[in-house]
């Protein structure tokens, strides 16, 4: 097992994680109301592609990290998870950039594919909105060395995060033909 790398302070952690999650959530909601009409000289939908790539890599990292931890390679698990967290930050930046620059796109499909798309999209958005505090709390339990609590919480966080990471690129593949 690894050693704790930060000191346990649940109260402070709750406040910090709560505030941070709220700020990110609010920023995403607020910024989605704006659209910048800039002509940047490149296709702004490239950010959507970057988002899809980052999300796919996170999904792979999540699997790799799960395999690593099941094989008791805790150090590798930690490194993979850190990479996933860093990629998530990059994702957030790219996501906001895309929504600011490209605005919203209407899905052009009809019938069953439309229902499937909307189903995936809404579950994806809903879970993505609530996943951040889960991820941060799970990471916090690991950093403080409370591995029993970390494992318990990760049983919920991992599937949620994995679902969000996989459905992200799926949504991209479905919507990208309708980008203007």
């Amino acid at each position, binding site marked *: 097992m690894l050693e704790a790398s930060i000191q346990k302070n649940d109260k402070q952690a709750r406040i910090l994680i709560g505030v941070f999650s709220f700020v990110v959530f609010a920023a995403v909601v607020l910024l989605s109301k704006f659209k910048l009409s800039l002509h940047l000289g490149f296709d702004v939908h490239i950010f959507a592609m970057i988002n899809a790539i980052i999300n796919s890599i996170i999904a792979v990292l999540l699997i790799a990290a799960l395999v690593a931890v099941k094989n008791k390679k805790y150090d590798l698990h930690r*490194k993979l998870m850190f990479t996933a967290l860093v990629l998530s930050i990059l994702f957030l930046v790219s996501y906001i950039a895309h929504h600011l620059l490209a605005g919203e796109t209407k899905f052009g499909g009809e019938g069953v594919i439309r229902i499937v798309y909307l189903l995936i999209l809404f579950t994806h958005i809903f879970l993505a909105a609530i996943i951040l505090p889960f991820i941060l709390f799970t990471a916090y339990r690991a950093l403080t*060395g409370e591995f029993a609590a970390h494992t318990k919480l990760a049983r919920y966080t991992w599937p949620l995060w994995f679902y969000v990471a996989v459905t992200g690129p799926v949504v991209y593949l479905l919507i990208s033909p309708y980008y203007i």
Partner: protein
Amino acid sequence: MIAILIPAVSYILLKTASDHAVVMPRKYLLDSVVTVVKNGKQEDDSIWHVTKNIRLINQLGDTVHLYDRQGKIIVLNFFFTSCRSICPMLTHNMVKMQQSFMNGGEVRNKIDTSIVQFISMSIDPERDSVSVLKNYADRFGVNPDNYWMLTGKKDSIYRFAFEELKVDQFSVEPISPDFIHTSRFVLLDRNMVVRGYYDGLDKDSTSLSQLARDIGLLMLEKDKTKKSELFLEIIDLKWLWAIVVLIVVVFVVVFYRNRNN
């Protein structure tokens, strides 16, 4: 504009403020200067003297090598048990330093204190047998885990003191080659390079706190001989990189096919 300016200004401010805030302990013993060609450029590279290994016996009767403690920071001095003048004070100060590094910091948050190894070498090894050293160590409350009191062959200890540590260097008082009666504490870094000489009697009452500070700095010093291990394992995961490349290629292809339609 602002998005570039704010980070840039912060970086410059922080850099100018912090560059001279910490003075790393200098290296003392220069072996030679070699000229190497690096990336097509000629550079002078100083080769610092790396302390050679020595085999001695500690207060528990175990045969130990200096290199058993490779990768640790070493604080070393010379003494002998029948000494009535300065040695008790030196040992006392050494033990105090050992204890302060043991107790330091929060339990959860502490740095690994076992990273420091304290060593006192007897300069009268014929009389300082293992049992004599053990008695002496117990009297001062020495914790043998990371504080060795060493005895062994007299000539190898003396050779070590003069040729490897150069205890007489930069010394104001002359040190007799037949009897290393010095109050100096010698500091070695993780790569066995001498990084400082300190007055173990602490007459000016700053040298030991300086030593403690320097130990802390050496603990944090970046080891340039070692590659960062943080992402090494991830870089090693070839299959992971293969998947990442595959993902990137697939999405780029999808992207361009969509845009061209």
